[in-house]
């Protein structure tokens, strides 16, 4: 039997980080006490009507423009009708026939993977449902409606993805983008980024097979695992001559399997029709241009700038451009100091380790770009050794945000000894005291230089540039040969 091809399409839901819900003034916050952000509109009381948040439309447009799709200038919402306890109105307000954006493209440009593009079918706006919390062995279900009415964009890809790796990269790229645009925190664990995958297999060139929709993956890793498992399941079934039925399956992370959901839940006839409670919204040229001009530089542009204008390597540029805040921190620092490579090293090294250790974002870092520039400048000017700068001065200025870098170096007594005569005297004295070792060096045992370094550095109490000392010791030894 010929190898089967895999065809995957993704439906990615992104919660927008607006202040209020999409159709009411209720707060849009994660983690509040259950049913605390539920006013009359969220509860679907009689007489209530949806108001539409302009902020939501702006965010949807930003995403559509960033993904190079076509923005629909006449927005219409639709009702998707079904009954469920976490859906207060008995219908979800969504966009069916006229999504805010048609088409678009996700470009994957990883160093470790062949470049490829994923075409999008559409991006549309809708409201999130509440959460049903099923209590085991109980004859009731708890419902939390805080999430009900939280604004969502749904990004639907064409069925052009061929592997779990591609699907994972697509999600990483989308997550990076929504964070860049500042429209979502893209957190899969908390559900602000969610992904359903439509998966089918077929013989090369054959028409599309029956698609299976897999839900309930709360990390990119699980998306990959669920897809791999589903491909394997479908491949085995096909090999055994079994028919794959089109259904919705849920992923079980405990044992890495998928299982079918009750067909009743998926046989819904949603009876879509245009939402008569929201007037069609016309996006004027002025509105469109305003949003377009408000877009920040996107990851690809940032990467290009890092390489072309700052001379960084592809590797460095990839790492820095991964996060908009980190890239911004780099650019700000670079505006105070010309040593681009050093800035990159500092950010990728001590700064990132500190952020990781303390589990904070760079926006919460107490070290300003100006101070980082001062630190780098001090090292470049040999006012302080690189190791002192990264270990002692860096920590000190982090914990004393009001202290300037120069003052910190002085307070810590880290100013480098510039007096080379004094240093030369020190070296001469040490070599004089260890004649035997000097002989060993001249006999080819170059390693002893480390011992000389240690002795000299100890006497100088670490206030000197080790590299310079190393050079001077070598020079002296070679001279007295």
């Amino acid at each position, binding site marked *: 039997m010929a190898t089967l091809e895999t065809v995957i399409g993704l439906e990615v839901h992104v919660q927008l980080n607006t202040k209020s819900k999409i159709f009411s003034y209720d707060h849009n916050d994660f983690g509040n006490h259950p049913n605390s952000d539920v*006013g*009359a509109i969220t*509860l*679907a*009381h*009689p*007489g*209530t*009507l*949806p*108001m*539409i948040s302009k902020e939501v439309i702006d965010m949807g447009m930003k995403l559509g423009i960033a993904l190079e799709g076509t923005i629909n200038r006449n927005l219409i919402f639709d*009702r998707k*009708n079904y*009954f469920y*306890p976490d859906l*207060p*109105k*008995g*219908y979800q307000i969504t966009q069916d026939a006229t999504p805010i954006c048609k088409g678009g493209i996700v470009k994957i440009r990883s160093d470790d993977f062949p470049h490829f593009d994923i075409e999008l079918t559409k991006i549309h706006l809708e409201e999130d449902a509440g959460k049903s919390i099923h209590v085991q062995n109980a004859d009731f*279900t708890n*419902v939390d409606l805080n999430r009900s009415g939280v604004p969502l964009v749904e990004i639907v890809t064409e069925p052009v993805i061929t592997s779990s790796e591609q699907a994972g990269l697509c999600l990483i790229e989308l997550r990076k983008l929504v964070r860049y645009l500042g429209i979502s925190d893209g957190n899969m664990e908390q559900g602000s980024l969610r992904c359903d995958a439509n998966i089918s297999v077929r013989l090369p060139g054959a028409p599309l097979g029956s698609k299976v929709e897999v839900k309930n993956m709360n990390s990119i890793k699980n998306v990959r695992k669920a897809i791999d498992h589903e491909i394997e399941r479908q491949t085995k079934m096909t090999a055994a001559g079994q028919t794959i039925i089109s259904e919705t399956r849920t992923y079980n992370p405990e044992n890495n399997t998928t299982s079918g959901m009750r067909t009743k839940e998926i046989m819904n*006839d949603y*009876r879509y*029709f245009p939402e*008569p*409670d*929201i*007037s069609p919204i016309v996006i004027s040229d002025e509105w469109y241009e305003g949003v377009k001009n408000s877009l920040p530089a996107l990851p690809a542009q940032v990467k290009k700038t890092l390489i072309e204008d700052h001379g960084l390597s592809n590797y460095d540029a990839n790492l820095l451009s991964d996060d908009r805040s980190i890239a911004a921190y780099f650019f700000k620092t670079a505006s105070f100091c010309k040593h681009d490579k050093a800035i990159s090293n500092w950010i990728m090294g001590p700064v990132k380790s500190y952020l990781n250790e303390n589990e904070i974002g760079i926006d919460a870092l107490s070290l300003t770009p100006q101070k980082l520039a001062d630190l780098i400048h001090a090292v470049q000017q040999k006012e302080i050794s690189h190791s002192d700068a990264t270990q002692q001065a860096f920590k000190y200025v982090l914990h004393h945000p009001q202290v300037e870098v120069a003052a910190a170096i002085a307070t810590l007594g880290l100013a480098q000894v510039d007096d080379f005569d004094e240093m030369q005297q020190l070296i001469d004295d040490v070599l004089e005291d260890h004649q035997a070792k000097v002989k060993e060096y001249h006999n080819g045992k170059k390693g002893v230089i480390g011992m000389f370094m240690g002795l000299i550095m100890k006497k100088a109490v670490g206030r000197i540039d080790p590299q310079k000392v190393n050079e001077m010791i070598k020079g002296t030894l070679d001279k007295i040969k």
Partner: protein
Amino acid sequence: MFYKSYQQIRADLDEQRITVAQIVNHHLEKIEEHNPNLNAFLEVFKEEAIIKAAQIDLKLKQGTAGRLAGLVVGIKDLFCLKDHLVSCSSKMLEDFESQITATPIQRLLDEDAIVIGRQNCDEFAMGSSNENSAFGLVKNGANPSRVPGGSSGGSAVGVQTDMCQISLGSDTGGSVRQPAAFCGVFGLKPTYSRISRYGLTAYSSSFDCVGILSKSIADTELILEIIAGSDERDTTSSRKKVPQFSQSPIKSSSYKIAYFDEINEAEGIATSVSQMMNQTMSSLKTSGHLLEKVSFPFLEYLLPTYYILTSAEASANLARFDGVRYGFRDLEISNLESMYKKSRTHGFGPEVLRRILLGTFVLSSGYQDAFYTKAQKVRRLIKDYTEKILEEYDFIISPTTATTAFEINSKTIDPVEMYLSDLFTVQASVAGIPAISIPLGEDQNAMPIGLQVMTASFEEEKLFSFAKSFKIT
């Protein structure tokens, strides 16, 4: 103490010939006298109204009273008033207390009007006779063996018998105009979107209009002026500037008026009604207006279009009444599905169930194109055709209803016959244009007859001007 218009009330208040407390007391007496028999009010806010009256009397003395001080209003029990029940005449919402106040009600309260109680209506505004209420039918004040019309039956009877000075109703296909005609009062359905729907329980969102029932055009104008206008809580509410209707002078113009032969010769039209129509038309000609017969080829499509679209929207609008968060929940349940089924089957009355089922059907996959989508297209045709007529003519006139108020229980067997009583009123609803029912007179049994006048969107001012100059000879 009968006041044709609020203007007279205000004059008497300003001259201190009367107090708000006395006015409220008068209406409470009328309610006590008529309501046990007619069942127009489901609840009377007696203590609240008395307290409010005292406060407003004080404000009048201090010169800080609003423009509607001393106006007593009844509200159809579809409007939300914070901390008050809003039952929609349904068992489903029998004990439901609202957390919000409808925008038009709020605007009345802001001008010191007093809401005296909730008025009976057809359940969720679905009906044409006020016989579909979970809390008993409403009787016509002109003859208690007759229906008052619907769905705003209680609201019409309230004004008819002076239980209140004006009522706010809702008109989706004629629910204000038809009961106004049956009860001999004025009933206005303004342009769709003219008045915010926020706080009005939805029946059919793209048709629902807040309507005004009154004893005079002067009151209709004043109330519309105060409650109309854009509202951020209803995105469909019009942003158009609201004219000062109450200040506009009577223009004695000669108007071009169209009428449809198809309607005046329609089958089932009562002789008394067509006779009075003919008299009215000749009187209008005598007054110098130009009357012309116009053809309206869509007459037979009006009701199907209306019922398909309103039922479709209603099926979604009423999905929220599911027994989950509030309202009626059947207790004989075994699981989620049975909770939905039993709560909705037992919480709604038969007419509401019928329209939910019809609406669900016309939206279903496989039938949507043939029914819902086609009806939307026909709605567009009717709207365009009607607008075209109104580009050439100032008004389209017709009787508001084909007959006068019919006997209670005479049409409850056949829903289609009941639907036919909306025949003349649905056109304005389908087209979204303003229409008013003006009392014309009475038939030989002293039952009121109404004249319907339709005009182009947002031309209410012209409608009022015509209605005010209108004299029955």
